[in-house]
């Protein structure tokens, strides 16, 4: 069995998610290859070869892969898919876009957001916004899986895999125009040990500054509920939930968030959940380890001064 793991990166930096997906591959068992697809991404390949348990890093470095467009990345992966029993990617925007195309081209089903490996053919993933866990046995020759990074620990960085270059070039009809990324000095949501999240109760985007100050003190990332995003308080890439980011930090602090099913889907695997809400009936209190019924505009400043 040989397993291909699609590296998650921005052409310069290998993202921490990749080390977690490699660990899912370790749980399946077999040789592990990491595939780096991008443009001027030699530094990423260098980082990928240090991941413990990785036997080979394959690199496709070409300008057509710079934006990691699903269309040609999927063709490229399909081109080498015969070498593999399993193809894995993070359940990220790149992985979720490209991998179903790979699966369809290989005429196999995909299992999305895998959170546990039972054996080489059998995997568990959440359905219905995390309200049920489905374990499925794949009958396909190639197992195509997107893996939920928060469900696996990262492998260490003491490996030394061989690096191989691939030269296949597939064009895409899709053209990259531009992107605007949210600049932040705080940790990424997916990798943060602590997350401070605000909801509709924050009232305005300006009020999020309070949470940002608290987050900076804690070394935390800032998240948000859908209500806060829809109201324009914060950009949508901060959304935690069924359709936003799925996170599992050590501490999740939910401020002014009621706790709808769709939000809980994104954070209920956090180790410790704290809820600050003035509504004692808010569903968030049913999952919170520590609840504080209080006006957030009083609680957050005093929390800020105490930490």
């Amino acid at each position: 069995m040989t397993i291909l793991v699609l590296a998650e990166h921005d052409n310069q930096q290998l993202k921490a998610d990749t080390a977690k997906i490699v660990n899912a591959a370790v749980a399946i068992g077999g040789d592990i290859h990491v595939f780096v697809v991008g443009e001027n991404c030699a530094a990423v390949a260098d980082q990928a070869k240090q991941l413990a348990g990785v036997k080979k890093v394959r690199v496709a470095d070409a300008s057509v892969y710079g934006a990691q467009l699903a269309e040609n990345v999927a063709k490229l992966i399909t081109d080498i898919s015969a070498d593999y029993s399993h193809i894995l990617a993070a359940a990220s925007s790149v992985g979720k876009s490209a991998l179903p195309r790979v699966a369809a081209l290989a005429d196999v089903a995909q299992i999305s957001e895998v959170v546990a490996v039972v054996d080489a053919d059998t995997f568990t993933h959440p359905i219905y916004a995390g309200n049920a866990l489905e374990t499925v046995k794949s009958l396909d020759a190639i197992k195509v899986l997107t893996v939920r990074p928060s469900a696996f620990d990262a492998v260490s960085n003491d490996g030394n895999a061989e690096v191989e270059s691939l030269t296949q070039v597939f064009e895409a009809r899709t053209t990259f125009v531009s992107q605007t990324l949210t600049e932040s000095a705080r940790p990424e949501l997916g990798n943060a040990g602590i997350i401070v999240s605000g909801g509709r109760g924050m009232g305005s985007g300006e009020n999020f500054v309070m949470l940002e100050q608290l987050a900076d003190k804690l070394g935390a990332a800032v998240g948000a509920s859908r209500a806060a995003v829809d109201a324009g308080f914060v950009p949508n890439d901060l959304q935690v939930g069924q359709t936003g980011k799925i996170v599992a930090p050590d501490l999740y602090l939910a401020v002014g968030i009621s706790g709808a099913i769709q939000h809980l889907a994104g954070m209920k695997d956090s180790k410790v959940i704290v809820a600050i809400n003035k509504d004692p009936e808010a569903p968030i209190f049913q999952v919170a380890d520590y609840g504080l019924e209080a006006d957030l505009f009083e609680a957050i400043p005093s929390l800020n001064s105490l930490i």
Partner: protein
Amino acid sequence: MKVLVPVKRVVDANVKVRVKADNTNVDTTNLKMALNPFCEIAVEEAVRLKEAGIATEIVVVSVGTKAVHEQLRTAMALGADRAIHIDSDDELVPLSIAKILHAVQLKEQADIVLLGKQSIDGDNNQTGQMLAALADLPQATFASQLNVDGTNLTVTREIDGGLQTLTMPLPAIVTADLRLNEPRYASLPNIMKAKRKPLESISLADLGVTLKSHQQIVKVTAPQERQAGIMVASVEELVEKLKNEAKVI
């Protein structure tokens, strides 16, 4: 131009499902069913394209038992022109749905196939991408804005770090994110009108699609319940607990 919108009947988003006692599946009997929220956004976008004079016909399609007629009528009440029901009793994986939709697209030759980015039951987020692969068409997933300019489509997508804009030639496959639009409500006159709009039922055999089995469900279990914790009386107590009891700060 023609827009094809695949829609799915799912358990209403506000209903919390329970797992069956024998762990074979979730129990969906007697639950309120609805149009998948992301499909609703896809329908709304198609209707807006028609109102903008870009789309000329909106065709909605759904795969399932006769019960999906209800959701197809809803989509037509929102503004779709006609509906296709592909009759199937089986629980199908996204690849099988994509194969069926590909066959429909071969017949319909739509310029844009607009889907929701995921259904809130399976949470798979696969069908649009798989259809794009089978049809060998460009795709724009997780769209939060789309503009049609002649035979080109420009789409802004929600990606992990922010937003990304792509442009591609039509025909293309687009999957809708939450922020693409705010779906309208169907008015009573439109609900009445939708009853007279054409709805065609096609069997899988007539469509000429053969499907294969890809996976079997081993078990469906409830996630570990999180117990409610304790309520603290003050911010001081909260900080004390987080420092000394939970030891997370």
